[in-house]
């Protein structure tokens, strides 16, 4: 066990954890940001997606020891906006995307990161950018449309 300081949603948090503990479990069990979900634990489903310095990362694949350095800024869905006003969240509401909703925080974090990098994505860009996030409920067509709507709001 060791002590780490991590920056999550604009706040510094002290945590005690084994160095290999995935960021996912630190933010869920220690910090209580449960919006970030556990789906597979092996980097395959995207349910655990957070931003590290604005870029989508699978938090189940980031050991705590690797994200406490360099003043990395970690953002979870709870920190994407103050009150759900991020264009991606707004677009998700407009398109009534969620069914069960479980995958959606990961989907939105991937979408927000995609739009950070490509503000006006093509269909192909969206396909590639969102391919890492699984939705068992099958909301992909709505997600696709919502990403486009969000892009429109950002530009």
């Amino acid at each position, binding site marked *: *066990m060791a002590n780490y300081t991590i920056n999550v949603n604009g706040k510094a948090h002290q945590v005690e954890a*084994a160095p290999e*503990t*995935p960021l996912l*479990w630190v933010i*869920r*069990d*220690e910090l*209580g*940001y*449960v*919006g*970030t*979900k*556990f*789906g*597979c*634990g*092996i980097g*395959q*489903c995207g*349910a655990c997606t957070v931003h590290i310095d604005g870029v989508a990362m699978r938090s189940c694949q980031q050991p705590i020891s690797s994200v406490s350095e360099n003043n990395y800024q970690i953002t*979870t*869905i*709870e920190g*994407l906006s103050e*009150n*759900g006003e991020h264009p991606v*969240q707004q677009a*998700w*509401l407009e398109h*009534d995307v*969620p*069914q*069960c*909703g*479980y*995958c*959606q*925080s990961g989907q*939105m974090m991937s979408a927000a990161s995609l739009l950070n990098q490509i503000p006006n994505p093509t*269909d192909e860009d*969206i*396909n*590639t950018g*969102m*391919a*890492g*996030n*699984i*939705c*068992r*409920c*099958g*909301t*992909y*067509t*709505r*997600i*696709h449309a919502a990403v486009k709507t969000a892009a429109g709001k950002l530009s």
Partner: protein
Amino acid sequence: MSTHQTRRNFLKVSTAAGGGFLLGFSFLTSCEQKPAAVAMAPELKMPEQWTQLNGYLKIGENGVVTIINPNPEIGQNVKTSMPMIIAEELGVDWDNVIVEQGKLDTENFSRQIAGGSQSIRQGWEPLRKTGATARAMLIAAAAQQLEVPATELRTEKGMIYHDASGKSVGYGEVASLAATLDVPEEVELKDPKDFTIIGQSTKNVDARKIVTGQPLFGIDTKREGMLYAGIVHPPAFGLELKSFNADAALAMPGIVDVFAIDCAPEGKQLQWSDGPTVRKQVAIVGKSTWQVLQAKQAIEVEWEQTSAPETSAGHKEKMADLIANGKAEEARRDGDPEAAFARAAKIVEATYSAPFLPHNTMEPMNFFAHVTEDKAELYGPIQTPEFLEKTIATLFDMDPAQIEVGMSRMGGGFGRRLYGSFGVEAALISKAAGAPVQLTYSREDDMTQGTYRPDYLVKYRAGLDADGNMIAFHVRGTGTHGSPIFENRFPAGTTDNYLAEKISMDSNISTGAWRAPASNFIAGAEQAFLDEVAEAAGKDPIDFRLELFDRAIKNPVGERNDYDAERYAGVLKLVREKSGWDADSGDARGVAAYYCHNSYVAQVLDLTLDTSGKPQVEKVYCAVDCGIVVNPEGALNQIEGGIIDGIGHALFGQLTFTDGKPDQSNFNTYRLIRHPEAPRQIETSFVENGIAPTGLGEPSLPPVIGALANALYQATGERVYDQPFMGSLPG
């Protein structure tokens, strides 16, 4: 429309129909409660005081209404649509409504189950009556207060008006008086043409919480003093726990305890929903999920072989043998099929198969439990809370009154959470650990200890006369723990000589309901087969089906036909028109239609092949007859989801077994459909008919597998018979 209602017959109606609605219609006398701190639309002002009108309804003095959603929410959106039905008849403004999730409450509700796409169908009447009865009592109270005859009052958006005198009063102002009045014997239900909430696209009531990542799901549960738990279950079917050594695990950081649990002790009567419970497992309890997940791997377990290990290859052989030589149950026979086949000008024959499928809800199985000597609190994602309560009562010798079962929002169900063994496990672990615990399965636990969609094999034969008329039809099917055949569904009733035969196959692999049980296989097989028969008959596949429906409408064969041929034909005609079937889309297209879970669906699917030959579904046209559409946006979402899910599983899904052990255990080896593989477009049309609504959680999935198979044939010239289809396609 009027309906007679007393306390007694309310009770009767509710019990008979089921649907998570009121049992005892206990109108409480002005029961004052502290307003709960529930999240609400920010602009809503919380009332100072609530008046409870019945098990479903609380009205605040300021007119804000709380409606309880009785049924479990698994993503089928009942938490929005069931309260909409009450709100409609109550006559309130939807913007003034707060929805709360109900707990298991067998006094006030019945059939608090998510399953079989039945919540809306079975809830329709009772939910309407609940709203209408409360409205009638509010009107009666207003009549007293305003000193005018009740018959001169009308309601609109939570207000009661007396037009002649210009007087008006709000629901909130008369609610406490209303709660003291008698329950009316008869209530008037609205004419559907006057609906203002039903039929309007209404946003998912949890959407804001979902998009901001609020705790909603079982896995998000945190309680004071709570420990985290995991289980180690047998790695293969046919093995049972013999002994274990937890020394290494107990030495790991954060690990509190390791012990064995027995979910099915001798002499305890369990519920069907406990399903194929693994009897004995090793439980591990610790201070964080991660520590538990790590330490699980350090437990040394010895297993003993108690039944023979099975393999997928062995299953295929056995099923083929059963189809060829097995003794079958003759489920239905019309006419003389043997003689008709003997005189047929042409016989078409084909065999279809599908593998086991795990449910793979995105939220793995999990449950919270806090069990002490005299009390059990359970909370989590479950489709069958009442049965879980019964099992807990049996296992711990408790009275149901000592047990509380709460339902979280579920990260998917698809049938998996009908079988609540994880809730039982959590309870046993909590009791043994002497602490509240949150049990969470790893994805590997979830995928390798399932209640799988069974593997199936079905053989069809059709006999055509010289003019291409189907004169004989024979289906013979088998599957693990049951045949997939529905002997009275289409095309039964359309063919003079018909034979349906069922064979069940034993196995030690556990199976259960999976989104549209059995239909999820048989629809695709049947609709692909009929495509082949239509081709052999030289007919357009839609014309061919419509001819059959025509026969079933005018002169049906037999009396037990489980479908309405006119509604069936109706969706097919609608999809023909919407898809421009009679023109040419340019893409390879396939058609299919199916009826299950009381709703009718027809689809036309267009696809292209990329340069490597990998299919891409371009567009799915979908026509649906589910009667009145309660919430169009939610309905569309369900239909689209079923289509994408069906295409994904038909193309990629398979769980195979070697020596009783699943070969796939996580998403690196198990393939679910991903974003780029989804259809680029889905266009859904509804038949408008004013018939009482039926559910949509399942019906769009089964037929799309047939439409996909038929489009693949158009694209490649090869028929696909075995799922997953990608097994026989490039890419």
